[in-house]
């Protein structure tokens, strides 16, 4: 296991390096000029050129790349071209709202979706199954901003139970944090509940047709024991994959939900940085996202061995 872990971590290095090169080149080939955003609408061409010079944007691409990668190897992600703040601080500020919303969304999704999926598989073809599948289709089909606005209208505007928008750190004001996290988490969870419930149902139905389940039933085990002890554990492998990639997706940014609920997360930082062509911030965010995907995939693979003893590393 430790050798496998080391091999996987080492394998991530060339992946990240390739991502770094591609991101750097793609950004420089995209039309756009951070100096123009920095200087504003009234800047003359001459002033723009002076700002480009002071930001080092007039240097050859190779010089810029070596400068960036050299700093990166020393743990320095650079400074935002626009706000003049260290990129690491900008990302750290925006990371926690995104992480918290992701954790709450996935916890909520798993807590609701797995029982729903189990119930639908167990009662396959019944009205319960149809109800779960209908919900699943709706959860997939309705855009998140529609769900978001409907929830805001009901719970914030009409009932006035919850705030419309905003984010508070749990360490500053836990009640305020919780009140502001409910609606965005519910909004995002609508997709993940649909996805995980559907996956749990499908995976469980496959397993329920296996010989060992028939054997378990034949030897007189209760239906509950068959379902939870034998079937669900074996059905969990694909469900874990969905949960893991769901987490990576949530971390890499849910910009629509962040905009509707005014959450200062990584999604908005990414979009704002792209509009401003703030190269160091975009580069750091894409590297971070790639890192999260690599880590999540590794964790998913490791979780397989816990769920299925046949899988060994």
């Amino acid at each position, binding site marked *: 296991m430790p050798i496998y872990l080391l091999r996987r971590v080492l394998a991530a290095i060339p992946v990240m390096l390739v991502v770094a090169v591609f991101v750097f080149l793609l950004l420089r080939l995209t*039309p*756009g*000029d951070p100096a*123009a*955003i*920095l*200087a*504003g*609408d*009234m*800047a*003359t*061409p*001459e*002033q*723009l050129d*002076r*700002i480009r*010079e*002071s930001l080092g944007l007039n240097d050859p691409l190779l010089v810029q790349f070596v400068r960036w990668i050299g700093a990166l190897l020393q743990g320095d992600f650079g400074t*935002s071209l*626009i*706000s*003049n*703040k260290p990129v690491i601080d*900008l990302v750290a*500020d*925006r990371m926690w709202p995104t992480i918290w919303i992701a954790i709450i969304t996935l916890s909520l999704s798993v807590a609701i979706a797995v029982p729903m999926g189990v119930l639908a598989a167990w009662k396959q073809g019944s009205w319960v199954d149809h109800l779960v599948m209908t919900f699943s289709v709706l959860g997939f089909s309705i855009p998140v901003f529609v769900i978001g*606005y409907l929830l*805001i209208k009901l719970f*914030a*505007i009409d009932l*006035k139970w919850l*705030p*419309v*928008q*905003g984010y508070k750190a749990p360490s500053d004001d836990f009640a305020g944090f919780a009140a502001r996290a409910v609606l965005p988490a519910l909004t995002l969870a609508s997709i993940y509940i649909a996805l995980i419930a559907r996956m749990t149902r499908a995976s469980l139905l496959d397993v329920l047709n296996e010989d060992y389940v028939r054997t378990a039933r034949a030897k007189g085990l209760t239906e509950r024991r068959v379902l939870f002890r034998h079937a669900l554990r074996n059905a969990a492998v694909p469900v874990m994959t969905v949960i893991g990639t769901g987490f990576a997706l949530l971390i890499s940014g849910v910009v629509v939900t962040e*905009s*509707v*609920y*005014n959450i*200062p997360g990584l999604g*908005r*930082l990414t979009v*704002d940085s792209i*509009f*401003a*062509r703030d190269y160091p911030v975009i580069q750091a965010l894409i590297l971070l996202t790639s890192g999260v995907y690599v880590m999540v995939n590794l964790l998913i693979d490791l979780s397989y061995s816990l769920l299925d003893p046949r899988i060994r590393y």
Partner: protein
Amino acid sequence: MALLSALPAAAETTITAVMHSGLRVMDPVITTAHITRDNAFMIWDTLVAVDSDFVVQPQMANFDVSEDGLTYTFTLRDGLKWHDGGEVTPADCIASIKRWMVRDGGGQMINDRMESLEATGDKTFVLKLKEAFPYTLQAMAKPSGLALFMMPERIANTPADTAITEYIGSGPFKLVEDEFQPGVKVVYEKFDDYVPAPGPQSWFSGAKDVKVDRVEWVTMPDAQTTINALMNGEVDYVEGVPVDLLPLLEGLDNVKVDVLKKLGAVTIGRMNFLHPPFDNKKIRQAALKAISQEDVLTAMIGNPDYFQVCGAIFGCGTPFEFSDGSESLTTGGDIEGAKKLLEEAGYDGTPIVLMQPTDVATLTAQPIVAAQALRNAGFNVDLQPMDWQTLVTRRASQAKPSEGGWNLFFTGWIVPEVSNPLASIMLNGRGDKAWFGWPTDPEIEAMLNDFASTPDLEGQKAIAQKIQAHVMDNVNYIHLGQYFAPSGWSTSLKGVVNAPFPVFWGVEKE
């Protein structure tokens, strides 16, 4: 004593405001971005300031101009302090003025004529000019473009093309740096040592009395969420309420909606003078004739209560309001006249690359309406959608339109930015050194020079009228009228200030 200390402290009052965009750039000398200027007026103060009649008033300093117009003596008010406790000195002001002169057009004009700028006492400094420049105080007092803010000398010594990293001012509010999140939130606290200027508050002059403890600017990217938050009492002030969302706020007891920026903004179209077909004056005139202000403004704003057809390039409601040459623009366009001009010019069907930004709500409609009007007149229009960032990069290119250049784009300014011939950057006719579009126009340059050396308002008005007629004839740009963005605020706010952009002094919260 024990009883006193047991009394609850007075509740802290905080205004939560949603501004037109997130603050990311802090240095008001490096950028003309409006949000940076708005922030600068919170934390820095100006030497002199204009009132609502465009008259220059003392702000941090009283001023005296010699009879020959060559010597300006500035005397700092007593008790002026920086947010870090230091006293404001003439050396600070001189360094701030010198840094601003490198970047600002008006500042450069002063610098070109400057003989010396020196401290003459603990509170006094003198600007001496080699030749009279009556626009000097107006340039130093202008509220937008690159306004002149005073900073401590150590900060003002930063090269003008490098952004400052320390945000110490002497303005009515202090920045709470720990809580500043670029693009998300800016927090200000009342500066207790601020000494308001004498006289009534008017625009950016007079007493900047702060009546709340804190002001928080939060960025909200979604307009519907912003309106919901205002309705729910989660925010107190919204700088710009989209006109199509106004019905949601009508009839609410807890929200007031009004136009605070009475002068509003203008929208304009700018052509590229370097390449065909707009290097031909007649073809530029044909384009101007084809376009109707009312059509553009209707598509852009919709509700006629919030726009004004206005032929004056210096803005309606300003001292230099003239409308010479704007008849076709303000009376629905003249397609037949445009066709005739195109024929006379021998237009050969060269496509017009018209850049359309798709991500800036106030700039998406103009290109579409103009493209149709130009097509109706017989132009071959190549409308190219792109994001604003791509547009601002591409407009800096002098390449041929077919090789990554352009022919026409649209943008907007607040009226104070175009209300004076020397402030309006679009009037610069110095070819390569001019604003994007690069017109070479010695006639307008001569008129601007005349204006700069004319001391009396009547004389300036006569020249401004000539400039108006010239711009319409030469089509230095197409002036497309004026519009007014309504603001919304909680009725718990009292004394919300009418000004060309939001200010938070004078505002109380109940």
